[in-house]
């Protein structure tokens, strides 16, 4: 699926634009602060209807503006698709329209289009806290599988209700939310473990291909038995007293982690910065493959300044692996064309003062 036309209004520092997008993608060139990353962010917005940098919609809105509008016209094998999102700062209202019809719930529009973004902060996938890795899993699996997204949102809703009952010290109400928590939570754990079966070997292979010595290992850290709903009552019973004391649910996939190892050592604690960077890139490559396989079509690829930190050899390998315009659309940012790895020949857009020009 390829982006054919993009419409952006009121989004960060970007000037209002309505542009046709080349089939192979584009290299977005410009000095920092001119709007390259903002443009990537706008392009990604119709994927999750959330900023890829995790910013709130109010922050994404152009300073002092009434809101923003982003629309993506897509070409798929089956035909065309148009996704539009409009955010109104007054009342914090978001309207999402797919092919002219407003969707009732955000979840109905998530995953109509898929893209994978590589960002400079991605190294935190290997070096940072577990929350980043859970976010990685949840975002990827939600885009790969609608039933995972549905289970995840039910799980979050049940968790919020249960935690609220815990904070109020109402044990009899806490128990009422055990069943929906277990039913949805088991699907979430099952989804993650199912993904890991294929992903572990892929991760090792990607890491080796990036030239990293030592075997890469991907492990699920958490309560794998909770993939079975029948295991939940006992787990919740065991933690009930503690949960009530803390006002928090302490059992479940919202506490789990994905452990990355190279050569038998846990990367988060013992990896070098170089290893951590490679492992984070390997995870993103697994995400790309996972989505391509699950959806039967290549997701678009958004690369924000990811080559700068790599040495020449790693740059070349990664660019060769990722930038294949004949199979997928790629958007890549760099300050200047000569800072792109050799061999990348994408149409160039210059981004200056929030304005993109070919």
């Amino acid at each position, binding site marked *: 699926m390829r982006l054919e036309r993009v419409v952006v209004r009121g989004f960060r520092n970007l000037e209002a634009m309505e542009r046709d997008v080349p089939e192979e993608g584009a290299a977005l060139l410009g000095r920092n602060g001119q709007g390259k990353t903002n443009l990537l962010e706008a392009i990604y917005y119709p994927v999750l209807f959330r900023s890829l940098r995790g910013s709130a919609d109010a922050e994404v809105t152009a300073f002092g503006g009434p809101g923003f509008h982003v629309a993506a016209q897509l070409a798929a094998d089956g035909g065309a698709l148009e996704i539009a999102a409009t955010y109104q700062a007054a009342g914090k209202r978001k309207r999402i329209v797919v092919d002219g019809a407003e969707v009732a719930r955000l979840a109905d529009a998530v995953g109509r289009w898929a893209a994978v973004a590589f960002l400079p902060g991605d190294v935190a996938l290997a070096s940072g806290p577990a929350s980043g890795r859970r976010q990685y899993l949840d975002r990827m699996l939600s885009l790969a599988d609608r039933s995972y997204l549905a289970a995840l949102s039910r799980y979050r809703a049940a968790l919020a209700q249960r935690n609220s009952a815990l904070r109020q010290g109402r044990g009899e*109400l806490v128990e009422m939310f055990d069943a929906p928590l277990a039913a949805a939570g088991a699907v979430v754990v099952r989804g993650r473990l199912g993904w890991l079966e294929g992903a572990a070997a892929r991760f090792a292979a990607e890491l080796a291909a990036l030239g990293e010595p030592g075997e890469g290992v991907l492990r699920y850290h958490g309560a794998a038995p909770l993939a079975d709903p029948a295991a939940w009552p006992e787990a919740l019973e065991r933690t009930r007293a503690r949960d009530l004391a803390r006002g928090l649910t302490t059992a479940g996939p919202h506490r789990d982690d994905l452990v990355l190892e190279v050569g038998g050592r846990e990367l988060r604690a013992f990896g070098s910065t170089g290893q951590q960077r490679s492992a984070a890139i390997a995870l993103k490559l697994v995400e790309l493959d996972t989505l391509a396989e699950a959806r039967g079509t290549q997701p678009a690829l958004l690369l924000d300044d990811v080559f700068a930190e790599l040495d020449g050899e790693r740059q070349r390998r990664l660019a060769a692996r990722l930038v294949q315009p004949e199979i997928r659309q790629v958007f890549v940012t760099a300050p200047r064309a000569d800072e792109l790895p050799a061999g990348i020949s994408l149409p160039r857009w210059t981004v200056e003062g929030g304005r993109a020009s070919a």
Partner: protein
Amino acid sequence: MGAIEELVTELARLPGIGRKTAQRLTYHLLQQPAGQTSRLARALDAVAERVGPCESCGNLTEEQPCAICRDPRRDAALMCVVEDASAVAVVDRATEFRGRYHVLGGRLSPLDGIGPEALRIEALVRRVREDGVREVILATNPSMEGEVTATYIQQLLSAMAVRVTRLARGLPMGGDLEYVDGVTLAHALVARQELR
């Protein structure tokens, strides 16, 4: 605050009406013949004065008890439990159900500070015990909170000699009964399942 601004503010409090729409409605009303807006104002006054919950079932009514509770052709042994009064009209219109209703006035939601004591659950148990109810049909909304509320009531009634059923699964999850199409709702009622 001026009169115009006051009306805009009040209209904007209504669900689904933003400030822009409220302004449009206000200016529309101002362009109507005088009698028209007075009739609307009187209708609002009348609703506020005369309409209140039925003391038996909680449905909205002008008389006590409500027309449904008074209707002798309705089967008093069949009781349909709904979250809101608006669902009474929805179920009555879409289905063949001709028993009585019980309006809870919401659903269990700790996040909104709503526990069983905030709902008309005690009144429900009393009616089941005193009115010779044979079957309670739990028609709470097909949402997580609606399911939880249904389970809570089922557990409460399990010790009593009453059949407790739930609308058949297959209603779109996360929604409100009001958004379910009539045919689907009627089918879910016919295919209701006993909870144990």
